[in-house]
């Protein structure tokens, strides 16, 4: 019987949801079921990872570990080979912590896991797993068990193309769209979460897994592009019919999500029902071309274009396109908001001498904090986080040396285009550290709690499953989440940490340094625009 429902709403944020729950939006109450859950249960702001980005944040929910320990920092990872950088994608094999699915399965609990990122190639679970962020072309071989695709394919209304990740469509995130175009773009996202809901409900009803976990990510995509119709501070009723049509469609999406939550809850009414987001949302007004700033500081050199089509595509990609023989500090991708400081080695003579690293880094932090919008004179970077502070742990070396928090929480640009700071005509949605946590079920208190950490969610889910909480989990059960009677009958227990590696399939054989280096170098990524997330 299902005891734990873990529902992910990517990017869900109380600033957007509150008017839809309380009925203060002009359309009245849009999400009555979620409103009732919050009235009955426990809710709190949920603080995301140090850099609030989908892959590291959901991996923290799934592992109970922060990125410095689980090892996922971005969509993209790279290997610096001195004269070239090779970009490739993070995947499940890079996770250096055990997942909740594996922890539960080891202890005899069955699991259904749907649409969580970084879950491909699929891991063996005691149940069913369909990873998120996978193209329809690759769904079959990325499901666990291998027979799952044919089972799901037989479900009524299943459509692999509607269900899966459309790289071309998502690459438009960050582009300025006219509302007519935006309507069409949003409209294509509605069927996607319906597909995930249909599969989820069917597996929930047929398999009755102990742990049912489903993530819906339309919330994130739609908020990115349609922020101007969602932000209560920006929406004033709509200046055009097109804007009003977008608003109506976007709210229909939220109504649909509310219906999915209701139906899932009704399918397992006695379970703990846990809703979490990986981060919240806010509006971003500035385009911050941080590599241009680093060029002006003398830390990087752009790669010269030979005028070819390939070079043009490379310049327009979301990967830093630099002359690596004359670059010592750079931002690799917009999604990272990270600055990498290259250390001088034989292969990388352009790097900073190791003995000068600390002084160079301190000076660079000061220079970054002084980056300004020339039009207003205002600083555009609010904080610069050192990696040992933002991402402590055994995987810290994979993290950027510095992580930027922009004044408006936006993502940086890595393109070579003047000026370095531009104000957008319309604010775009961007990630904010404060997401949501909502929980109902046996023993759950009726309260608005203190702010929580994203890694608390994994401890809560484990406890809900009746499992001891592994000692290496970094989160805890918040005081006041459960009532005293429940805790008396279900005391929080702890256990030794599980296996240190989470990747599912056959572990790679021991490798020498050259081979380690080579494994990083298989990228063919120039068309991957979606990382502007």
């Amino acid at each position: 019987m299902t005891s734990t429902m873990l529902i992910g709403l990517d990017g869900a944020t109380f600033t957007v949801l509150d008017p839809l729950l309380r009925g203060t939006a002009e359309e009245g109450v849009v999400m009555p079921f979620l409103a009732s859950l919050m009235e009955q249960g426990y809710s709190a702001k949920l603080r995301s990872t140090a850099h609030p980005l989908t892959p590291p944040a959901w991996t923290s929910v799934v592992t109970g570990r922060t990125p410095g320990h689980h090892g996922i920092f971005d969509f993209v990872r790279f290997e610096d080979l001195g004269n070239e950088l090779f970009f490739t994608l993070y995947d499940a094999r890079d996770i250096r912590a055990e997942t909740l699915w594996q922890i539960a399965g080891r202890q005899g609990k069955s699991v259904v896991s749907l649409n969580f990122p970084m879950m491909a190639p699929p891991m063996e679970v005691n149940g069913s797993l369909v990873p998120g962020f996978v193209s329809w072309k690759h769904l079959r071989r990325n499901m666990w068990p291998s027979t799952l695709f044919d089972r799901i394919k037989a479900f009524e209304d299943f459509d692999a193309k509607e269900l899966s990740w459309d790289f071309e469509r998502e690459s438009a995130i960050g582009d300025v769209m006219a509302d007519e175009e935006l309507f069409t773009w949003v409209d294509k996202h509605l069927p996607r979460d319906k597909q995930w809901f249909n599969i989820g409900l069917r597996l929930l009803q047929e398999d009755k897994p102990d742990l049912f976990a489903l993530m819906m990510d339309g919330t994130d995509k739609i908020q990115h592009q349609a922020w101007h119709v969602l932000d209560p501070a920006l929406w004033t009723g709509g200046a055009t019919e097109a804007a009003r049509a977008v608003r109506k469609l976007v709210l229909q999406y939220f109504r649909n999500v509310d219906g999915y939550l209701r139906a899932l809850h009704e399918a397992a009414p006695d379970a703990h029902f846990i809703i979490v987001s990986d981060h919240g949302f806010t509006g971003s007004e500035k385009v911050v071309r941080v590599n241009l700033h680093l060029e002006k500081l003398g830390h990087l050199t752009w790669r010269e274009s030979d005028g070819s089509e390939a070079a043009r595509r490379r310049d327009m990609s979301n990967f830093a396109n630099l002359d690596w023989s004359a670059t010592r500090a750079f931002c690799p991708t917009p999604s990272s908001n990270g600055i990498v400081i290259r250390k001088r080695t034989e292969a990388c003579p352009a790097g900073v001498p190791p003995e000068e690293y600390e002084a160079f880094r301190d000076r660079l932090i000061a220079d970054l904090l002084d980056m300004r919008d020339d039009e207003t004179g205002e600083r555009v970077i609010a904080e610069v986080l050192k990696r040992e502070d933002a991402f402590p742990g055994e995987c810290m070396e994979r993290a950027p040396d510095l992580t930027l928090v922009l004044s408006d929480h936006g993502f940086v640009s890595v393109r070579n285009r003047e000026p370095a700071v531009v104000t957008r005509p319309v604010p775009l949605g961007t990630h904010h550290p404060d997401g949501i946590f909502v929980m109902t079920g046996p023993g759950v208190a009726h309260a608005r709690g203190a702010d929580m950490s994203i890694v608390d969610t994994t401890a809560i889910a484990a406890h809900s499953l009746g499992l001891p909480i592994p000692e290496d989990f970094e989160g805890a059960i918040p005081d006041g989440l459960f009532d005293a009677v429940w805790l008396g009958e279900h005391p929080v227990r702890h256990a030794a940490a599980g296996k240190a590696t989470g990747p599912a399939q056959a572990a790679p054989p021991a490798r020498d340094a050259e081979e380690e280096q080579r494994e990083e170098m298989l990228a063919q990524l120039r068309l991957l625009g979606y990382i502007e997330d």
Partner: protein
Amino acid sequence: MLKRVEIAERLRSTVEEFIEDWGLDAEISRDTKLVEDLEFDSIDVIQLVVAIEGAFQSRSLGFQDLLMREGRYVDDLSLGEIEAFLEQRLTRA
């Protein structure tokens, strides 16, 4: 150590399984090209590398040497080229 014929057969079956749901009417041979004949996008190349690494149980085959030539990504690859690459990497001492 894998024999050449085993490498060829494993690669072929990996690719056949890889494109199973794509609705292509393509014959798989050494001359089959990923982009021209199988309509690969860049993300499909990455996924194929992951699939091949899984099939041969190694993440250390060094695919960058196949995918990049003189600092630029190749425009297309035939299965024969991939097969020759795998033979070279899997049969070396």
